[in-house]
């Protein structure tokens, strides 16, 4: 088997790094709170200058998520959201808004669709990366290869519990960026103290040259700027989802305002962290 070319996410994050951009990566549950508002928020994401968006594939039993994202998943599932439709929304985010897309979802819907079919659909939709929080590197080899053939990178997670040996092992196969889980917990829970977090990011940096994007519990511009002094990118989910629970323009405006402040905070962090 020939080595596949560099994945789209790898290329995108490398370009951002070379330009000195530390992106804000907003997380949106697919089709939340309804598809119209979702599309409005996507436009606001692009307008705020975010190059990349993370779109959540809803699952009935999201064990890595806190109450806010759980509730958003439950709601879109009740509204009929599926994995197939999520892939269509991902394709539209790239086509209509020029956004890079990372899909985040649990393993079972992917298995049910079929790993090869899922990978092919990711290629078709030009999905840049995929995050599967319940698929640790030990179990990920097969899906990683299928996705790589489609130019899609499988993103690995690093947690505060990951020791240096394990990190070295995990980083060897990783691509695109490493998703640093800021603290032991679920999405939307409190973050680590700023000191702990920066020490943690620096420790990971000593082991790998991969771009480090930090998520879980980051909710304010101040926090985002703080994290970005050491990290390459910042992921924000629950704090954004909380703002858009109502359908319509008020939510889009609230999202635009919040994203603008977050991006501004990140832009104030100068230079490369490497």
């Amino acid at each position, binding site marked *: 088997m020939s080595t596949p070319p560099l994945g789209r996410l790898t290329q995108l994050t490398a370009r951002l790094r070379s330009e000195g951009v530390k992106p804000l990566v907003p997380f949106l549950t697919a089709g939340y709170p309804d598809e119209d508002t979702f599309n409005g928020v996507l436009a606001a994401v692009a307008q705020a200058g975010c190059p990349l968006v993370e779109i959540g594939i809803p699952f009935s039993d999201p064990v890595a998520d806190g109450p806010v994202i759980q509730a958003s998943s439950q709601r879109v599932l009740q509204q009929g959201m599926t994995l197939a439709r999520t892939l269509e929304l991902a394709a539209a985010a790239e086509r209509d808004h020029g956004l890079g897309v990372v899909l985040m979802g649990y393993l079972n819907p992917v298995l049910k669709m079929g790993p090869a079919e899922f990978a092919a659909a990711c290629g078709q939709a030009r999905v840049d990366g995929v995050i599967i929080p319940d698929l640790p590197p030990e179990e990920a080899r097969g899906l990683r290869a299928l996705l790589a053939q489609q130019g899609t990178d499988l993103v690995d997670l690093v947690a505060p519990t990951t020791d240096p040996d394990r990190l070295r092992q995990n980083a060897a196969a990783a691509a695109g960026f490493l998703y640093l889980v800021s603290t032991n*917990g679920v999405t939307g*829970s409190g973050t680590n103290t700023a000191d702990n977090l920066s020490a943690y990011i620096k420790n990971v940096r000593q082991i790998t040259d991969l771009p480090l994007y930090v998520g879980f519990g980051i909710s304010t511009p101040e926090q985002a700027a703080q994290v970005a002094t050491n990290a390459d990118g910042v992921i924000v989910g629950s704090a954004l989802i909380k703002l858009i629970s109502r359908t319509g323009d008020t939510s889009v405006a609230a999202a635009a305002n919040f994203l603008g402040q977050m991006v501004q905070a990140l832009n104030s962090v100068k230079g490369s962290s490497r």
Partner: protein
Amino acid sequence: MNTNSIFSTDGTGRFGPYGGQFVPETLMPCLQELERTWDAARQDPAFKTELASLLADYSGRPTPLYRAQRLEKHCGDAARIYLKREDLNHTGAHKINNCLGQILLAKRMGKSRIVAETGAGQHGVATATVCALVGLECTVYMGEVDMKRQAPNVRRMHLMGAAVIPVTSGARTLKDASSEAIRDWVTHVATTHYIIGSVVGPHPYPAMVRDFQAVIGTEARQQILAKEDRLPDAVIACVGGGSNAIGIFSGFVADEVALYGVEAGGSQAGSSAALSLGEPGVLHGSFSYLLQTQDGQVIPAHSVAAGLDYPGVGPEHSHLKDTGRVCYDSVNDDEALTAFADLSRLEGIIPALESSHALAYCRRILSQPTAVAPWRKKPGMKKPLVIVNLSGRGDKDMAQTGEDDS
């Protein structure tokens, strides 16, 4: 469906293609620590001695193997029926076997806090019990629906000092309690051990919990040989996650003994029969049969028995189904309720609604033509020998079955 081939197949924690470790990265180091601790403990004579003495002096093992002669008559005298009396354990169910083992491991790992999920409350009670025994903090997650239908067990947990946290997400039953326990564990991973109550979850839990429950099968084998001088023809156990079944099966799986796992067929509202009606998928850390939609969403389970009310099943059962070694079938709520009343009246033993599924199936199989169960007419056989695993007592179920007006 060809999903198996995408997983690594280096054999760790696998039963055929089933099992594995499908958990967030935060938990991986902690599963590896648990595996190392368990591997060391199982080879340590001091650990074995401590566990054996707790099982004997604290829980009251060995539990009796009791011949239920009035039940035999009720089943048309078609077999000799023995009940493995796990209901006579301390706390009233087999769950304590696993909890005693895991609490010793938690101490070895230096953990100060325990979390657990519970459906019927039997595992929650057993966990609260062992935490009281060793003086560790205990938090039990329980679906709001289950807290209502198993109220006596909630009171028991409180009395022993455990915090019982109502789970209000999803169907508010065992599945959702399990998810919430995992979220707690991820958040407090440094201080906390998660005592999973069945042979489910990521490796090493399915194998480890099986080994702790294997005492049921080991005893039953010795007891039936002592009483009848031969092995049974069939062994029947109920299957939710499947720990009591794996425990008793492990004593007979290498022999020529028919094994039956009985799932909860529920009612028209739905079932919990993952093996009979589900397809392989991943929930709560392992790859196994699962009730799911065409889009891979988990279907909430339904059963009158809160302890069977789970849409998944232990991965070893999935393998035993595929290999054909165990026959899996289901009985519905009404059949289980009938068996519950029958055993109470016929033998003066009130069985758990979970165990009542195994009892109902025993009666069914003995009333069917022998073609269905060829072991019933082995040449030269006098009367078949059947063991039913009576996994727990039914006092907790009085409100469910209308016997309690309170």
